[in-house]
């Protein structure tokens, strides 16, 4: 599949599910891996720069379209996807991060060759842009990883509160994913009104939340996940939610 066809399929992604997004992302990764492999072969064979330049252009178009169609989409849907299936979302993010890591390594290798070879100005500019896109994307993936950990915590707290407070009919939970780097994040809960004063119910649930947070701290304090590539998993041990609010 060429970049053109690939971009058409990506255009459909905006209306599709996590599965469809994962499938399209795999296609994107395969396409770029093929392009990178070609570029490496051209370099080994000391082929003309025009062929390497064509690969750069292909990667540039692919990266820009991917940013428009997948990254922006993930930005608005990451909490939904993580809520729907955190394992699949984790796999998707792992595939994306490993591939992006490979691209960054590839650009570093190319930079060394650029110094020796007579690359055109356009090619050098393309390389700078490609590296820039990948580094930005690395930050975005890190944010998606962090939000996924926040979602796991929200889901676990919600389940625990439901089990402990059977006197309430819990419906759903929500939080603002843009708050992921805030010190204090609110876990919004909806439940059927049982006639109790809302603020009294909040007080009871907040006491429970504090216990749950302390439990999480105890459970995760000895777990240390090593950084992989440019990514860290520090949010796994963090306790995100400082209070609940009924909405």
């Amino acid at each position, binding site marked *: 599949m060429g970049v053109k066809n690939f971009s058409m399929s990506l255009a459909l992604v905006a209306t599709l599910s996590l599965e469809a997004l994962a499938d399209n992302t795999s296609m994107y990764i395969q396409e770029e891996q093929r392009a990178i492999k070609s570029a490496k072969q051209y370099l080994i064979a000391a082929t003309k720069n025009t062929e390497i330049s064509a690969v750069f252009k292909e990667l540039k178009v692919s990266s820009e379209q991917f940013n428009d169609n997948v990254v922006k989409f993930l930005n608005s849907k990451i909490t939904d996807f993580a809520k729907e299936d955190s394992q699949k979302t984790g796999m998707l993010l792992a595939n994306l991060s490993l591939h992006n890591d490979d691209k960054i390594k590839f650009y570093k290798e190319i930079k060394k060759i650029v110094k020796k070879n007579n690359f055109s100005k356009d090619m050098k500019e393309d390389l700078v842009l490609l590296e820039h896109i990948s580094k930005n994307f690395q930050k975005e993936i890190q944010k998606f990883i962090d939000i996924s950990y926040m979602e796991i915590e929200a889901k676990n707290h919600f389940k625990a509160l439901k089990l402990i407070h059977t006197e309430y009919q819990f419906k759903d939970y929500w939080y603002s994913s*843009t708050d992921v780097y805030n010190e204090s994040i609110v876990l919004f809960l909806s439940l059927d009104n049982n006639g109790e004063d809302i603020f009294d119910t909040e007080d009871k649930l907040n006491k429970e939340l504090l216990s749950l947070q302390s439990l999480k701290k105890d459970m995760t304090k000895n777990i240390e996940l090593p950084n992989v590539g440019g990514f860290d998993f520090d949010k796994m041990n963090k306790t995100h939610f400082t209070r609940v609010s009924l909405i």
Partner: protein
Amino acid sequence: MNPYREYSETLTHCVYTMMQPVIKVEDVDKLSLEKSLINRLYYALYNRIVAELPDLQSNTTSNKHMQINQILLKQSSNRSIEQVRQVFNDMKILREWADYKPNESTPPYNLNVLQMKVYSIVKRAKIF
């Protein structure tokens, strides 16, 4: 009556009225209407608090939300004021969702709960 406080009460009353089943709103998109109500509830609360902060009434600078939060935070040891601060900040998060985040998932709110929370503060004789 303080015009800010009056406006605050008008807004909450307006939201309450619009939530009544006698209002036929078939032609209005339900989500858009609910987002408008959330926005109005936030401003009902905002104006109720500003009603007791004369310095902010004449202040034309932006980011008054942050200033209000700071003022409330300074007195957060008072349980009643901390409650106001929390509801105010929660409504801001919901208002931002309603006004600026059309692609994000819809929070599982119940407008009656939000209206009750805001109104419980708006009707207070005194906040500070």
